[in-house]
């Protein structure tokens, strides 16, 4: 069953035009000139109940704007949005009761008091009976392993700890559908891992549908059933992660530091850049050579001192998507 249908969504912003120089600065006081910024252009997609859908795209692609339109914060310039039978912007007050939302860079918690106190606001906003509220809170808090953390003032928490508390805040009213805008931004690997596990758990246990934005390929790989790639306000891809991999390739960026002179295998390695005789940077094609085999091949010749493997940036993937289309 589709719970979200977006048809031809566009959103434009009027932004004041700024030119340099004193003269135009003075002019702009009297007659401001505006230009139109197309943040989202004719985006269409559907989401079924129980899905985890990832919106992937570089900074400024239009992901947050789509989330804001979906959560009823922004009105669409044109196009139609239906979520859970509501039109989010015009029916905001009734609609938002059924959804949860979390913005990685904006906090719902009260800064100077413990999150446990902040949670009581949700209890009353959503009119959750006291016992039920305690039950849900304990369940979420336990699952995230933050029993002690919720009693410290929010301002003393690490970003990862705080983000876990934000999740509790966003889920206390048991929304069927949850929007996450960059939920893993700035987190260390452990916190990321914990949050991914939590999302998967609530998705399985309660059938919670998730729409999340990210520019982290790992999030998509580990979480999303489906990935929608957004670039320049447009939808450029909408399919499974496996399908994305097929088109965009299965590459990793590798940097290796060795004891003696580094010797790289010929197959599966390209774009090699020797920073020094003992340090190299290159792109690994995992379809040809696995990470295990790569490490083995290098370690046969010399000892590995340091090794970093990262995903290619989203921009690279998008470039490959455009290439594949052409």
């Amino acid at each position, binding site marked *: 069953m589709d719970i979200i249908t977006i048809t031809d969504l566009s959103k434009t*912003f009027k932004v004041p035009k700024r030119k340099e120089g004193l003269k135009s600065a003075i002019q702009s006081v009297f007659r401001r000139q505006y230009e139109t910024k197309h943040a989202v252009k004719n985006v269409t997609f559907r989401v079924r109940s129980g899905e985890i859908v990832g919106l992937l795209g570089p900074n400024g692609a239009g992901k*947050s704007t789509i989330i*804001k339109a979906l*959560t*009823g*914060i*922004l*009105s669409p310039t044109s196009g139609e949005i239906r979520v859970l039978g509501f039109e989010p912007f015009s029916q*905001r*007050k*009734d609609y*938002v*009761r059924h*959804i949860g*939302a979390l*913005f990685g*860079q*904006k*906090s*719902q918690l*009260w*800064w*100077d*008091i413990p999150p446990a*106190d*902040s949670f*009581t*606001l949700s209890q*009353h*906003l*959503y*009119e959750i009976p006291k016992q039920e509220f305690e039950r849900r809170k304990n369940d979420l808090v336990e699952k995230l392993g933050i029993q002690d953390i919720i009693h410290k*003032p929010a301002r003393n928490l690490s970003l990862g700890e705080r983000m876990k508390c934000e999740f509790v805040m966003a889920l206390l009213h048991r929304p069927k559908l949850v929007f996450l805008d960059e939920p893993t931004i700035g987190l260390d690997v452990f916190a990321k891992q914990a949050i991914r596990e939590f999302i998967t758990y609530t998705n399985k246990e309660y059938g919670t549908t998730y729409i999340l934005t990210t520019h982290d390929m790992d999030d998509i790989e580990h979480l999303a059933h489906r990935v929608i790639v957004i670039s320049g306000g447009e939808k450029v891809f909408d399919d499974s992660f496996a399908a994305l991999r097929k088109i965009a390739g299965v590459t990793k960026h590798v940097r290796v530091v060795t004891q003696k002179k580094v010797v790289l295998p010929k197959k599966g390695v390209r774009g090699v850049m020797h920073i020094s005789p003992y340090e190299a940077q290159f792109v690994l094609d995992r379809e040809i050579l696995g990470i295990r085999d790569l490490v083995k091949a290098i370690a046969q010749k010399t000892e590995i001192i340091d090794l970093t493997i990262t995903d290619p940036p989203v921009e690279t993937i998008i470039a490959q998507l455009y290439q594949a289309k052409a």
Partner: protein
Amino acid sequence: MKHWLRIEAVCASLAIRSRMAYRLDFSLSFIGMFLAHLALPIYIVLLYGVSAGFGEWSIGDMLLLTGTIQLARGATSMIMSGLIWHTNERVQQGTFDLLLLAPVNALGHLLNRSIDFEDSGLFLSGMLVFIIAVVISGITWWQALLLALLASFAIMFFASLYILFAAITVRYISTLRLFEFQDIAAQYAQFPLHIYPSLLATLFITLIPLAVVGYIPVGVVTGHLPMIMLGSLIFPVLFLGFSVWYWHNTLTHYTSAGG
């Protein structure tokens, strides 16, 4: 309304707990506010004692005028004074969006979230100034009660200003300077209307209904003005209607911030 009051109570308790994190700051600003406003009637007695009042208006009447204004301002501040700086902060940090995720009226919730107890000092001193004025002016307690009831129109006027300025803040990502207009308005309202040129006086009854804040209620209760002047109390009601409309209009044009 019941739901709103419950949330207001929860937010009040959370706000107090937040404030308690900075206990000293809290009590100092409370006392400071209280003393500053208590000084007003003393100022008036000194000033008008020397200048012999304003025509028919005696020092007692002038004190009533100040008392009514302070009472109304204090009452309005109790729930609204945090509105502008809170809105300003949210707009600047981009967290105004989050407010719209609450399944309640946005303005109502903004009021919930901006509650700030510093101004209970203003309310207490407002009450005190009012009582002092009633005693000195020698009006009956019935007249005083009527005056307090009429002060609700003044509350409407001040509330409208807060709402209007909060909306302007959201629309134009503006400055906290707007807040000062409220003080300026109260200062202009502190004088009997007949000292202003007639054009300004008309303006202060209609478009910017400053006169209803003190001059008209006090004038009618003390017999300086005819009862019919109470008809002008329609203007603060209209003014409130306009501010609320402007607020809603602002939300329909809300663009959030980039990022």
